[in-house]
């Protein structure tokens, strides 16, 4: 089971969601599926149709930059992080 670390700003959108969660999944895409099954709608916050990661959402697997196809080892750690960029309109 992989460990996913989620940002506060994402967890805040889903009542009961946790910052650090164990999920099954052999790729980033499958991990996000598992998150969405647990907290419906979370995929829409991380991905756009395609699917692809949102422009200002970064994902790392065991600290290396990843995309949806990146494999996730059984004991891997997946970080989902909002980019530092992207806040231009947030001021």
């Amino acid at each position, binding site marked *: 089971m992989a460990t996913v670390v989620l940002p506060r*700003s*994402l967890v*805040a*959108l889903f*009542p009961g969601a946790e910052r650090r969660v164990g999920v099954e999944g052999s790729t980033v895409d499958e991990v996000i599926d598992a998150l969405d099954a647990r907290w*419906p*709608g979370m995929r*829409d*916050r*991380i991905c*756009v*149709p*395609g699917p692809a990661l*949102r422009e*200002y*959402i970064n994902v790392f697997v065991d600290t290396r930059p990843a995309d949806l196809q990146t494999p996730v080892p059984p004991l891997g750690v997946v970080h989902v992080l*909002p*980019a530092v960029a*992207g*806040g*231009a*309109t*947030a*001021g």
Partner: protein
Amino acid sequence: MDRRVLVLIGTKKGAFILEGGADRDAPWRLRGPLCEGWPINHVCQDAATGRLYAGGGNPWFGAAVWRSDDLGETWTHSSEGLNYGLDASPLRSVWHLTPAHGALYAGVEPAGLFRSSDGGLTWAHVEGLREHPSRPDWKPGNGGLICHTIIAHPDDPERMWVGISAVGCFATENGGRTWEARNRGVRVDFMPDKYPETGQCVHKMALASGMPDRLYQQNHCGTYRSDDGGRSWICLDDGLPSTFGFPMVAHPRDPDTAFTVPLNGDDRGRFVPDARMAVWRTSDGGASWRALRDGLPQEQAYLGVLREAMAVDDLDPFGVYVGTSTGQVFASRDEGEHWARIADLLPPVYSVEAAVVAA
């Protein structure tokens, strides 16, 4: 029945709610920031259900519609179905929400229209609008290519108008299957052809009460009225200090009365003229206008009022509410004659609506 007024405010950094008595006198209690501090372009109430909705977009997490079943105490959000699929850019933001005839409509960026029949939980694209033949020529305004106005016919669920910047007014009379551009008489100062079929930078439209073929429009290039459902427009600029402004609001009962807030021009800072704030009211269908200033800042007011940031309630006399780009909210409880500042130091205000609820 005792009542209270909720002023629903969308800002650059979340939604806020000002809550006051039906006398609309101080004090007003402020709640917020709501919706996790997302940029919120519009907050409204569905009078049929009492539910509140907020539309916006977060630069990291995309567009969504927020919903509250307890007058803003708690919120959930959804964007299920709120996308164009694989063949178009992801939605950046929700710009406007209109509850009507048991449904909820959302205008979005990039410009398009979505419909929810389950209170905003899931959404379906109203595809006919983006199938209009003018679609390849749609160009964004300064705020982007946005569908920012949705007006439902009060009686006929098949009829609706939308406003898209910088494309113009469109109308459907068959529930959204097909749309007709309705911009005749609306000027486009920034194009060689001043009166094209589309390309108008409509900023806001409002439906006159009791006359469902009368619309008022504040445009980038003038102020207008239509008496034929938008098929033709007459210019109402005479008597106003500027042809440029954003909001347009109609009287809740009198079809001859409407309000706008002219700014000093699109290339002059977009402030209220002479840094003196005024809401302008017509009581004769736009033949003449009067500035309402009592209680509004009359010096060093380097502020603007955005397209969604003015509203009326439906009390008698009705109240008028205006939010500014510099974070103030002003309210009048006597139809615009006198004003009081009811909030200050908010983030830039994107939208204001008023809801009258049970105390």
